[in-house]
């Protein structure tokens, strides 16, 4: 079982729940599992090619998964996965 922290922006899809307990062996497997449990969540974090959206960061045990093996990163029992929106300003 792993814990997934959900940011406020997605809690409307999880009935307000901030932490989910999910089984899965990789980051990608866990995130897709959330999508099947909470429909609509997947399209918010993955683009049409199934890649993490540009403004979505996922951290496993506080490390950006882009520094690990991305969605293929193995997840150990009891590790915490955080979904965090990137903080960008924008212009124009």
């Amino acid at each position, binding site marked *: 079982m792993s814990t997934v922290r959900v940011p406020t922006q997605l809690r409307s899809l999880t009935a307000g729940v901030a932490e989910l307990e999910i089984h899965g062996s990789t980051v990608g497997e866990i995130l897709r599992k959330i999508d099947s449990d909470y429909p609509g969540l997947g399209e918010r974090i993955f683009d049409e090619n199934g890649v993490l959206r540009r*403004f979505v960061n996922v951290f496993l045990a*506080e490390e950006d998964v882009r520094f690990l093996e991305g969605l293929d990163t193995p997840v150990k029992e009891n590790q915490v996965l955080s979904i965090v*929106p990137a903080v960008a300003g924008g*212009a*124009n």
Partner: protein
Amino acid sequence: MAFVQSLKCRECHKTYPIEALHVCEFCFGPLEVAYDYEGIASSISREKIADGPPTIWRYADLLPIDGTDYVSLGVGFTPLVRARSLGEELGLPDLWIKNDTVNPTGSFKDRVVSVALTKARELGLKVAACASTGNLANSVAAHAAWAGMESYVFIPANLEKAKIITTSIFGGNVIAIEGNYDDVNRLCAELASEEPTWAFVNVNVRAYYSEGSKTLAYEVAEQLGWRAPDHVVVPVGSGSQLTKIHKGFNELYKVGLLDEEPHVRVSGAQAEGCSPVAAAFAAGHDYVRPVKPNTIAKSLAIGNPADGFYALEVVRKTGGSFGSVTDEEIIDGMSLLARTEGIFAETAGGVTVATLAKLAREGVIKSGETVVAYITGNGLKTVEALEDSKGPTYVIKPTLEAFSEVYASRRSK
């Protein structure tokens, strides 16, 4: 002045009310402030600005604030200095330095914090907070003290000592995190979800906060006699400042303050030990691959720059370039600026000057251009970086003979 219409997602254009929101709920894209530019154009004028205070608030019509109850220590309208000696060394006869080292807490961050906390008060938020590499911490702590707000500033524990001391003096809470800036930023992004009544200036009120950097463009245009420069060189940490300077020049034209449409080439400066945006530019990528920072320019040590993508876009679109410079070149840049112009900049300023020199050498910056280099932080904040390279020219005994000896050897050089 109420010319703010809404917040708008930069990616999918969905609109949101004027609240402490920074991310689109649908696509996670960044939110930005949408203005009624026609309204601004009919209200604003060069004369009205000239009659305003000598601070960023002379441009209030172009900032995302409704009232006039500003949180301000007297921020902005810093000198634009004609850099004759430095220009001569670099072969740039029309070079100017925007000297933002002289803001109340010694960096350009006072601009964004003044806007962010003014907005925070309008939104009824009580606690000022931030993730910071130091300059922002100084500014948030100081402005919160002035406004009587509680403050929590989060910094990497390995920050320059001076920046920690100059933050804690203001009496707020300084939380040092065992990690780098990206760790601090991630923690604050998560905390912002848990503490919705706090104003994390660079997280949940970032849409307003980042607008403060536009004043760096407004002031330069006004100080040049209401014209835009041909080329600007801007240090890049998150990339936000660079995109906002570009936006600022374009807005001035949009609201009728500039007669000619500006075509400002925008170039970015990074430290080689943390150059994810410069590397993406050089490789022709349109995405920015995060890095683990290792540089003395700690105020620019952001390995996963939030606005990196947009900064790349602006630099490419305007025909600018990127430079990245080593720690040694940074110290040389700081020395060069100090010795030619009498301005003591922090390490980030060394990055800017060294990049300016590099781009001038490469011919990217042309000698016929009006060039402005943005020097955004004070050298007293990062003296630790100079400990090994700067010191007394001579150490002597307190006698006339001893001095005569070194004076003679000095004169013979």
